């Protein structure tokens, strides 16, 4: 989700004088602890309104995994003031789009519509923050919807199952081992009471961040926020203790065979720090996170990156190879490589090739040219990212929700200018190591 971000000082093409239109953004805090961040964007007469709660599957334990996500579903079931889908009807009638998403670190709700409706968004969100009605009958239907969602995304999707298994393999202690949607048995065993408790515990103004991007004035949005959210009382919210986990007792391996799969896949996940986790620990330098982000770009930034050039073209060992790394996470996370072998290449051969491609960074550190290319792309992507208000709001909300300052959105790029090729060599040596690795091979039964 987070764009790999780096700023160049010098590039071959004149990027130095690029005047970046700095958006007008402002932060407010209400006396009940609710945080509001507004970014003005007057290109179109619309606005996106998001409300982020700092609760997700990282806050869950076995037995109630998936409760944050199930609660997200229930949040559309109505309050006394806006019962039975009236919320969604209003949004639809006014031409709005709405939805919600849950991750390991947060749960967020949003509306996109005419900017004159920002106050209405606030009214509706403030209402369902405190007044949600929990009906057994609605819950029973909705838990079935969640099970169908799990079947669709995971149980009927061999790659989805392999990703879920790889995560659980990599982490032993960290709650990141749980899938956001929850383990099937936990979803099946869930009761209305679990959701209600979760709601009481985590949904409070002092655990929420409201982000508005669009054709608005910060001042009047602040006023609206005070009007609608100002009356809510601050509540006691549990504190998440550090649950970081970086090293295992050795490499972990899982070989899966699947009747459903037609295409083999390899997942190699290394446990690494994130911007959130380094704040909870004195041992790790934040610069490591930036270096890992640049590393991901050098290996998999575009069609000229090393994976594409060496693995997909070059030796034609992979049909697909990519890296997932989200620096904006609450806890230690995964630097995760997923790859599909080319015809006639085994998963073992591909694993050897990927490992040596990673270690090759030590033997042949990125050239001036490689670093420049990554930097040119990232400078430009900062401009491109401004095209979508939704995207801007999401970056702000994510940062805040994992305990970081939203201003890091821009500072991130400057912090990363310090990163050099030798920093990449250092993080490969430090984190790309056998005792941080969990490998999952997915093999179709038909290929056995």
């Amino acid at each position, binding site marked *: 989700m987070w764009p790999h971000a780096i700023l160049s000082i010098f590039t071959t093409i*004149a990027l130095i004088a690029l005047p970046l239109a700095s958006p007008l953004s402002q932060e407010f805090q209400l006396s009940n602890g609710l945080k509001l961040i507004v970014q003005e964007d*007057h290109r179109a007469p*619309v606005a996106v309104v998001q409300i982020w709660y700092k609760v997700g599957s990282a806050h869950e334990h076995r037995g109630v995994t998936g409760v944050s996500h199930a609660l997200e579903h229930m949040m559309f079931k109505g309050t006394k003031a806006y019962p039975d889908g009236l919320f969604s009807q209003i949004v639809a009638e006014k031409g709005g789009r709405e939805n919600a998403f849950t991750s390991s670190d947060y749960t967020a709700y949003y509306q996109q519509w005419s900017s004159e409706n920002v106050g209405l968004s606030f009214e509706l969100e403030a209402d369902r923050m405190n007044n949600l009605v929990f009906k057994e009958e609605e819950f029973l239907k909705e838990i079935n919807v969640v099970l169908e969602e799990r079947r669709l995304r995971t149980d009927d999707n061999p790659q989805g199952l392999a990703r879920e298994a790889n995560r659980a393999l990599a982490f032993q202690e960290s709650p990141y081992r749980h899938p956001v949607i929850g383990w099937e048995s936990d979803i099946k065993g869930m009761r209305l009471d679990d959701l209600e408790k979760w709601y009481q515990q985590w949904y409070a103004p002092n655990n929420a961040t409201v982000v508005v991007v669009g054709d608005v004035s910060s001042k009047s949005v602040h006023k609206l926020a005070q009007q609608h959210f100002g009356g809510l009382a601050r509540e006691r919210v549990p504190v998440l203790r550090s649950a970081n986990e970086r090293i295992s007792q050795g490499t972990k391996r899982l070989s899966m065979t699947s009747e459903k799969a037609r295409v083999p896949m390899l997942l190699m996940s290394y446990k690494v720090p994130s911007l959130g986790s380094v704040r909870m620990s004195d041992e790790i330098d934040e610069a490591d996170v930036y270096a890992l982000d640049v590393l991901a770009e050098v290996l998999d930034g575009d069609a000229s990156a090393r994976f594409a050039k060496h693995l997909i073209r070059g030796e034609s060992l992979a049909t697909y190879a990519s890296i997932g790394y989200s620096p904006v996470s609450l806890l230690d996370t995964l630097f995760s490589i997923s790859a599909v072998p080319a015809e006639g290449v085994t998963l073992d051969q591909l694993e050897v090739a990927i490992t040596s491609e990673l270690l090759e960074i030590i033997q042949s550190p990125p050239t001036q040219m490689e670093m420049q290319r990554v930097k*040119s792309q990232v400078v430009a992507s900062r401009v491109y990212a401004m095209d979508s208000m939704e995207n801007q709001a999401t970056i702000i909300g994510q940062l805040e929700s994992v305990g970081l300052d939203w201003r890091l959105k821009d500072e991130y790029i400057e912090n990363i200018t310090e990163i050099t090729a030798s920093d990449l060599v250092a993080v490969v040596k430090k984190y790309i190591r056998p005792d941080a690795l969990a490998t999952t091979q997915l093999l179709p039964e038909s290929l056995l």
Partner: protein
Amino acid sequence: MKNFVSAILVLLLVFPLCVSAKVQVESWSTENNVSVLYAQVPELEMVDMYLAFDAGSTRDGKKHGLANLVSALILQGASDLNVDEFNEAIGLTGGNLSSGSSSDMAYIKMRSLTEQANLEAVMRLLKLALSSPRFDDSDVNRLVARTLIGLDFKKQSPAAVAQDELYAELFAAHPYGFPHEGTAESVKSITRDDVSKFFNEFYVAKNLNISIVGAVNLRQAKAMAEEISSILVSGERADKVFSPPSKKTQGILVKRNFPSIQSHIRVGARSVERGHPDYFPLLVANHALGGNSLVSVLFRSIREERGLAYSAYSYFSPKLTGGSLVAAVQTDRENQEEALSVLDSSLEKLRLEGFSGKDIDSAKDNLIGGFPLRVDTNAEILNYLAMLGFYKLPTDYLETFAGNVDRVTRAEVSRVFNRYLSPEKLVTVIVGPNQDGDE
């Protein structure tokens, strides 16, 4: 509710004006007659360009998958730059080039900063790709192999299998009846010669529409369009694709066994091509049926009221020579019969009684009020312009959209619903475990 109603009236009056004020569309033709649509968006220092060629899979002939392969091969090296060098050069510009294809169209998109040096560098590479793509054997072979693995991926997705089965039934021997990636057999038969012949025949000025959006002025946009169009040979306008012949059926049910937990159900019928007089009534009908996400008839009856599925929706896809309207739902095998019967009875009820006035109003309000959201990024404006240009829709489409939706009556919606979704025209496809055996 009163204040909501009045707010909607205000939206109706204000939004079309806002849209036209914000998105001012200019159109012209280049010296060699390529038509261009352009909208200036000065706020962000970036520019997007969309080249739409009449070179989609309708041009495949017997080599299904050819158009798809050619569009991927366009950006794999050009002139003296091999694929590695070409991609490295793009990377350094800070810009992006991407390409792809659908059944009607092949596209190349460019995104760049407006800084002169950057823009010139991306444009140079784009022109190189258009004038002298290499189509090296190694790249052709690699992308053929990638396509074959992509086809295997599709085979493990019950949704993709259901989709292909449905289109095969709806369009039979028409190009819309074939998956645009082709089949394993057809893709394997494609040679480098096929690729360059296809490119020479269809990637020509006469088959091109250009759209430009961003922080460039009219003079700059004209220069960009001229640079691109003049590098192409004029060529021949591709023949009109035949319309799918009409079929008399008694309603068709296709069942396929699949090793999944859920059954994927699709019920669809042919609809109309873009620009057809029934376009707006069908747009409203589809929105009320399953397009208006959390409040549509299907969402309510299948998910809200019964908790039978995670997603229950419909989509209307008008193309150049025909179109379809499809409802889709996926549910645990043990709920298959119930979901199908709810779906069927919803459709039957709508044929007999029509939509409620409330559903029609809600769909229209959402389409009209939501229109500004569909053109609130440069990327979306670009896609709209490309669609208008390629399908030869009037350039005032954006301004007249709200009025056109607003004029649709409940009676018209009922008329198109009965005309296009009558039982004998419906094809039902079910892909899931324990079906009664293949038909």
